């Protein structure tokens, strides 16, 4: 203990004695770590598991149903026709199954004196949506009847329309129709937004409004995301009978047996379409679990992966630089090291003292790394505007930053220290 205090005292003395040198060294390391941290912060949101409790049990349904022979049809489609989607809902193999499409509506609270409406990103879906995604309810619950004029709203919209109170039972108006609020969600940060990871929407916010899909279609709420069709249609209400591909389907399959059965269920459906002459393709239906689905949609940007590699290399260069700086410093401190050895310090003790010094430097370095890294993050977010609100330095990342700083500082010191503690004593002092 006493020794530790002595080492700390010596280290602080050393750092004070060579301020310029250590400033240079700390700056070198801090820059390298800062760039890495900024990069990790972005990578972390991009690659996080949005629903870790069951990400391996929730699957995006991709099917071979496309009737046209033009274009590349080797890959199954993640967007489905209404009748394909209905076939999925009909199965009782999955624990939960949902279908959805994205829409946008304007709405206002009926009781409000103001006539101004708020735009609301809308998910037209089925009630299992809430169970499958573990959507957090603040008040109320899901609708029970898929044909009811009932909606669930998100925390933001509830704030805008009702000032955040329990608005269950209140009515809102959409396109001159009345909808009753049956549920209000808590603030819900789903990153990435796995249920709509395609079309680069993985970092969009969760929706403002959730409504039964049948009602949405009856009222022809527009389709706000990718839709492909082989037939003309004028409104979403016409899509039920037409070859319009726009619905996404997700199922929860808790066991391997469920998964196999459901795969067979899909395959025999696609086969029956083929037999009926609707498409000519080999059956290639796929069930991607959440993380596979995110990977497939390249949620982690290639740019950022390449950048991560570059930052790692940059850090290696910084370590190398710091190490050669230290080598020079230990070289000029040879006399003191030799003297300490001569009067009874062991190699171990010399090494330990140097290690303590490097840890102290690492700690100082950590502070600057986090500050500079945060600035870098804010700067680099201009490249990824859709991450602006969510990429940040959380506790975990800062602790990681501290560990990296201490580790890099120690690694830089390692070789110079081994050299110093093993140098010949008698040749250093006369």
């Amino acid at each position, binding site marked *: 203990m006493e*020794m530790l205090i002595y080492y700390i005292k010596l280290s602080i*003395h050393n750092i004070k004695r060579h301020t310029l040198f250590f400033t240079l060294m700390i700056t070198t390391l801090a820059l390298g770590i800062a760039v890495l941290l900024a990069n990790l912060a972005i990578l972390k949101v991009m690659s996080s598991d949005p629903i870790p409790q069951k990400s391996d049990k929730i699957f995006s349904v991709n099917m071979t149903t496309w009737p046209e022979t033009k274009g590349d049809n080797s890959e199954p489609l993640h967007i489905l026709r209404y009748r394909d989607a209905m076939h999925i809902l009909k199965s009782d193999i999955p624990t939960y199954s949902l279908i959805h499409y994205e829409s946008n509506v304007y709405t206002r609270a009926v009781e409000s004196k103001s006539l101004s409406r708020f735009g609301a990103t809308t998910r037209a879906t089925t009630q299992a949506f809430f169970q499958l995604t573990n959507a957090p309810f603040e008040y109320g619950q899901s609708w029970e009847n898929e044909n009811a004029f009932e909606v669930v709203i998100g925390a933001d919209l509830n704030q805008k329309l009702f000032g955040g109170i329990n608005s269950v039972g209140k009515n809102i108006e959409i396109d001159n129709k009345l909808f009753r609020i049956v549920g209000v969600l808590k603030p819900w940060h789903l990153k990435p937004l796995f249920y709509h990871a395609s079309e680069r929407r993985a970092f969009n916010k969760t929706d403002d409004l959730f409504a039964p899909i049948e009602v949405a279609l009856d009222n022809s709420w527009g389709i706000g995301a990718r839709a492909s069709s082989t037939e003309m249609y004028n409104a979403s209400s016409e899509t039920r009978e037409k070859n319009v591909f726009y619905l996404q389907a997700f199922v929860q399959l808790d066991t391997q047996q469920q998964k196999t059965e459901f795969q067979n269920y899909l395959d025999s459906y696609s086969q029956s379409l083929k037999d009926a002459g609707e498409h000519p393709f080999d059956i290639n239906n796929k069930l991607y679990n959440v993380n596979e689905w995110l990977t497939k949609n390249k949620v982690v940007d290639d740019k950022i992966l390449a950048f991560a590699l570059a930052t790692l290399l940059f850090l290696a260069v910084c370590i190398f630089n710091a190490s050669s700086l230290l080598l020079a410093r230990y070289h000029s401190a040879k006399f003191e090291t030799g003297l*300490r050895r*001569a009067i009874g310090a*062991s190699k*171990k003790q010399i090494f330990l003292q140097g290690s303590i010094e490097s840890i102290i430097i690492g700690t100082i370095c950590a502070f600057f790394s986090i500050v500079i890294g945060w600035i870098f993050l804010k700067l680099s977010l201009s490249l990824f505007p859709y991450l602006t609100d969510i990429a940040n330095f959380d506790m975990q990342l800062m602790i990681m930053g501290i560990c990296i700083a201490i580790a890099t500082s120690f690694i830089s010191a390692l070789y110079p220290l081994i050299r110093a503690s093993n140098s010949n004593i008698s040749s250093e*002092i006369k």
Partner: protein
Amino acid sequence: MLKMNSISRIFRTDTIQTHALRDFNLNVTEGEFVAVTGPSGSGKSTFLNVAGLLDTFDGGSYELDGVNVKGLSDDELSHLRNEKIGFIFQSYNLIPDFNIFDNVDMPLRYRGFNAKERKRRIESALELVGLASRQKYLPSQLSGGQQQRIAIARALAGEPKILLADEPTGNLDSLMARQVMELLHSLNEQGSTIIMVTHDPDQARAIKRNVQVIDGQITDMSIYAPLTSAQTA
């Protein structure tokens, strides 16, 4: 106290081998004061470095205070160095930006004494060399002779079994050299065992036992009376 038997030390470089010590025998008993003389390059410093465990040796055996040092680990050697040996170098080797107190404190730190014990030892060592009032001074604020006395205090503070001095007065003018020699003699009278390398025949003459190193070997181990040793030296 110190027993060297047929020690050899060979320095190898790419092209040459230097037998710095060969068949080197020496036996020093407790309380002795030994002056080591000899021509430049004869191996005096090499001997002192081996004796002080700063350097290894290639053959022979060496026993220090009853401990055979062959094959000891670095930890054990460092510990022996710290506990049993006090070094005095020609160029003092004080750390310039540590004050006197902290310089003398250094070996005690590695010994693991508590603060109180260290303070006691530092003060009494500084007392012994007559510089007790200079604790807060930096080395540069002292004369060469005073700095060497501080270095001696540092060597003494750990109460070593043996003091090893390599030309301790080599950098000092004659007046200051005399003060340092008086100090070493009085330490010897109080019981310290001292081995000192010197080039100064007058200093050697004043020391009871003289050994001469020539070509890495001790060629003369007889004990002379101060006067006769002056004639042969």
